């Protein structure tokens, strides 16, 4: 299985490097290819570990509402098409700092934008490394930290070997790999699972039971509740009667649950298959509608602020094609997002123990081998693992380059050796941050990045493109206010104890107030000074056919 994964990744990598070398130049190549290829390339870069691993894992753990993340990831491109794709292409800017300088004419704003790019890229990179670490440690049996460090070395190496991200065809190829490697096992699993399992997956109200005798080794102290008493055995064969109610399992305890026993629910998590789980709204703190809306706002409007998304508009020859490419991306993402739910729904029936182990992010990789015994299952698991690794490789090398570019160019005036150094620094920092992030869900971190983007670059771009009176002080004030509140409040909710009730929800899902706050700040402060005479020309030029 490990061999197969490595061979597959190697083939992807070798193909990638070769194609990057034979493509004389990124821009010319992308102008020669059709918008469809370009759309596939964008989708290939956009689908990260959060989509391939995170969605199915979070669905298994928190319930159906998780798929709102996927809807947001896709809806983000509707906002991009409607608000930024065409004008960004006409501005000639590659990055947000470039655009800020074009529109507001202030080189110093570049440094501030560079700082924001760093924050967003780091928040986005850490979960990618976490995903890679989880997959590698699962496939090879090494500890988590070895997987993360290995992933850091692989990505830095692949960038040094020739930067496989710059070729459009390679990115398009990555989309096909990700789609096939997640869709084929999903379809096979649904067909193979049998009518009983399928019905069970679609009827959460029947309850969640262990499908077979299942050993569960708790890695950390875990509190869980039982609805009915169950007789478990320890590895040395002694039986323990667990009564209904609350229990605490110390770290490294191993219980063997008999087949058919109800799955205990860990403290603070929704009952697997219960009302809260099967209702399609995000609900981790008791305010489902607020949480769903705030998350949708963050993801939909954060998408346009992601530096590696913005950069991609430049690969279209005209503003008109840039918009059309955006529509193609929506179709491709919609197709892809039909499949992650399969793993989550079947995972509840076939691998419910992952919830107790706090390892739900691995469900897409673990499930095929559990569901289909023998070589076919192993093959399918290797397929998903390779797809996830490919997702990690393509997204994180793109992110790392954007981060390094911001570091070496926008913050310090630098040259190519500096860029190499920045790649090394960026991957080291991401690896170090990913090490303690094992217990945090991939998607929580990714939504954090989207929230910061929605509270900083989204108002800057939207007001910069559609409002003539945006001025430099307004942009600076809005960026600072939005960036500090969004980064701070999610960080608080993850790292520090939070106030109970609505306060916790407002801190964990702050987009509902940070995005309007950033817009309002930019709007209000912009009115304090007069915009320069050329500001109107700069705006009109973005919309002139």
């Amino acid at each position, binding site marked *: 299985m490990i061999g197969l994964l490595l061979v597959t990744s190697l083939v992807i990598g070798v193909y990638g490097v070769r194609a990057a070398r034979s493509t*004389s*130049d990124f*821009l010319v190549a992308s102008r020669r290819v059709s918008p469809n290829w370009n759309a596939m390339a964008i989708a290939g870069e956009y689908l990260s570990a959060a989509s391939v691993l995170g969605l199915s894992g979070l669905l298994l753990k928190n319930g*159906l509402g998780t*798929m*709102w993340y996927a*809807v*947001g990831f*896709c*809806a983000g491109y*509707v*906002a991009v098409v*409607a*608000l930024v794709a*065409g004008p960004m*292409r*006409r501005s*000639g*800017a*590659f*990055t947000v700092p*470039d655009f800020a*300088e*074009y529109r507001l*004419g202030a*080189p110093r704003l570049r440094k501030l934008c560079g700082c924001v790019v760093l924050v967003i890229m780091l928040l986005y990179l850490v979960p990618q490394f976490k995903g890679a670490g989880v997959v590698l440690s699962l496939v090879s049996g090494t500890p988590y930290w070895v997987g993360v460090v290995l992933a850091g070395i692989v990505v830095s190496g692949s960038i040094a070997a020739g930067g496989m991200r710059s070729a459009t065809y390679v990115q398009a190829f990555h989309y096909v790999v990700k789609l096939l490697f997640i869709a084929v096992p999903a379809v096979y699993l649904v067909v193979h699972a049998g009518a009983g399992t*399928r*019905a069970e997956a*679609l009827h959460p109200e029947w309850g969640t039971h262990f499908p077979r005798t299942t050993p569960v080794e708790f890695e950390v102290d875990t509190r869980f509740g039982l609805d009915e008493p169950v007789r478990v055995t320890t590895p040395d064969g002694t039986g323990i009667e667990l009564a209904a109610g609350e229990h605490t399992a110390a770290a490294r305890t191993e219980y063997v649950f008999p087949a058919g026993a109800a799955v205990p629910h860990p403290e603070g998590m929704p009952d697997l298959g219960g009302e809260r789980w*099967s*209702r*399609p709204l995000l609900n981790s703190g008791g305010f*489902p*509608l607020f949480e*769903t*809306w705030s998350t*949708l706002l963050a993801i*939909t409007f954060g998408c346009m602020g992601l530096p590696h998304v913005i950069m991609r508009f*430049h690969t279209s020859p005209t503003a*008109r094609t840039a*918009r059309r490419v*955006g*529509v193609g991306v*929506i*179709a491709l993402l*919609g197709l892809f997002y*039909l499949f992650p*739910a399969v793993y989550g729904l079947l995972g509840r029936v076939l691998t419910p123990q992952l919830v107790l182990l706090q390892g739900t992010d691995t469900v897409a990789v673990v499930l095929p081998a559990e569901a289909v015994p023998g070589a076919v299952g192993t093959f399918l698991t290797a397929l998903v693992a390779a797809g996830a690794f490919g997702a990690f490789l393509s997204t994180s090398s793109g992110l790392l380059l954007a981060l390094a570019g911001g570091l070496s*160019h926008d913050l310090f*005036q630098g040259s190519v050796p500096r860029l190499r150094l920045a790649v090394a620094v960026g991957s080291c920092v991401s690896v170090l941050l990913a090490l303690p992030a094992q217990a945090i869900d991939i998607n929580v971190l990714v939504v954090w990045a989207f929230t910061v983007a929605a509270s900083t670059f989204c108002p800057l771009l939207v007001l910069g493109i*559609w409002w003539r009176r945006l001025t430099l002080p307004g942009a600076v004030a809005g960026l600072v206010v939005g960036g500090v509140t969004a980064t701070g409040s999610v960080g608080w909710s993850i790292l520090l104890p939070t106030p109970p009730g609505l306060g916790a929800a407002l801190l964990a899902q702050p987009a509902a107030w940070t995005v309007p706050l950033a817009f309002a700040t930019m709007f209000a402060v912009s009115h304090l000074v007069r915009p320069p005479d*050329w500001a109107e*020309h*700069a*705006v*009109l*030029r973005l*919309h*002139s*056919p």
Partner: protein
Amino acid sequence: MSPRREKLTSPQTRIALARGNRPAQHLLPIPGPVDTEAARRVFRAQRRRALRTVALLSLLLFGSSGALAALPVLGHVRAGGMPLSWLLLLAGIYPLLFLLALWHVRSAERVEERAEEERPDTGGRPWPRS
């Protein structure tokens, strides 16, 4: 063996790089349009369409999630063995998003085509077509 690689930078980046650490004296000159009034009309027409699309997108996203919250019955009615609310979330929204974006692109392109037709053919373009 491998073809020559070209370093690509956007015009703004080139200016910033050439400037180095010196403070900016002047930026990329922005040419004014030949017919400012026509350019303003295009801008306003595009802004109306952008606002309309964003409003419809918000209605679609917040409306559908609101409907799932307000109508729990959607979780009990089943279509093809699957609860209706799951079907809506897992597969129903993506085609709507696609159609919305397609519609926006068509209508934005129509504005641009009309502006091209109305432009008096004086031989000079206000700026190179991007």
